[in-house]
């Protein structure tokens, strides 16, 4: 089996660019959890890391919004944000066009996905890479689910995208790691920035870790917006990882509702054994 790792993590820019607003012990516990996840990925010796982000108008806008997109290039560039603002230096990140093309072709058997021969990485991908692969040596395949511009990708289709990615990973000889990045409840970049519905988050993560597909797909967008803010729409990336893991169970390695970081900071890993 060529699927070697599946997990989830937060990507909020505040985790990097507002680091000083959180006490060191709490911040370091989160950073250590990212480090542990990074080691777990490297221990599986993947050839590529597929990063399913919920990007924020870095590449995709309402003039031509794909429900799903995957990168198909030998390199990408990021962060698109101002380097001084995000506090992550702009760089090229290696891709693997040939492998991307084979994965995308297989995914297309099940899910219509836009392919992208260029991609400007925003914090949805750059913040996780900053912690997980700080030497940026592991090539990536960026992927995206529309969590921003309604009508949003339906939750059951996000799950199906994960299933298609799993079968694509199993169809190629390379070793594939896949992560989903996003927030759970949060109200990013709005007057409610910093608000977190911890009870809602913990309930969602219990559904995720339990591999409870029906429970994960039962949210309506209206209820998510009411309880978890527009940032809650990003549960799609976590749900896709549940689809990758095929109803296996996962483990939440870290959860801490850190208001200055504007999200319940999460690290979770699926048990693929």
């Amino acid at each position, binding site marked *: 089996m060529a699927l070697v790792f599946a997990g989830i993590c937060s990507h909020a820019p505040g985790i990097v660019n507002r680091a000083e607003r959180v006490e060191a012990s709490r911040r370091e516990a989160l950073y250590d959890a990212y480090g542990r996840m990074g080691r777990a990925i490297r221990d599986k010796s993947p050839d590529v890391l597929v990063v399913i982000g919920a990007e*924020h108008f870095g590449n995709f*806008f309402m003039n031509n919004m794909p429900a799903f997109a995957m990168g198909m290039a030998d390199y990408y560039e990021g962060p698109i*944000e101002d380097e001084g603002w995000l506090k992550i230096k702009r760089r090229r990140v290696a891709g693997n066009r040939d492998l991307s093309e084979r994965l995308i072709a297989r995914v297309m058997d099940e899910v219509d996905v836009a392919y992208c021969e260029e991609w400007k990485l925003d914090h949805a991908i750059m913040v996780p890479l900053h912690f997980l692969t700080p030497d940026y040596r592991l090539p990536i395949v960026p992927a995206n689910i529309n969590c921003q511009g309604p009508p949003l990708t339906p939750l059951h289709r996000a799950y199906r995208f994960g299933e298609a990615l799993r079968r694509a990973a199993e169809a190629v000889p390379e070793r594939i790691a896949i992560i989903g990045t996003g927030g759970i409840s949060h109200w990013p*970049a709005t007057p409610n920035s910093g608000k977190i519905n911890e009870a809602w988050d913990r309930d969602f993560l219990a559904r995720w870790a339990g591999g409870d597909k029906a429970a994960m797909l039962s949210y309506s967008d209206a209820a998510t917006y009411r309880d978890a803010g527009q940032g809650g729409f990003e549960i799609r990336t976590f749900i896709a990882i549940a689809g990758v893991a095929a109803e296996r169970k996962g483990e939440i390695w870290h959860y801490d509702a850190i208001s200055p970081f504007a999200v319940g900071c999460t690290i979770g890993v699926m048990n693929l054994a």
Partner: protein
Amino acid sequence: MSLYYVQKLLYNLNREPAMQRDFKADPMRVMADYDLTAEEKKALTDADIGLLYVFGVNGQLLMHFAALLGIAWDDYLEAMREGVRRHGPVRAGIYALVEE
């Protein structure tokens, strides 16, 4: 009211350093390429973050416009709150889906 074109201008602006230079030098010329009302043009040239938020501009676009203008994070958040106090609730877009 053309929220779509306000957001499209900001989307392009956030992506393109050359456009950022052009916008700082001559915003009216850059805005001529977009279908904007006089109120929207004024909000953009005045860097009125609060009113842009009330128009319904997504924060994921607006926070980068604020950063481009050198507005600090806390001032950005306060500008949106002040916009709501002054102009009323968000008029369109994703933040107008449900009453706060």
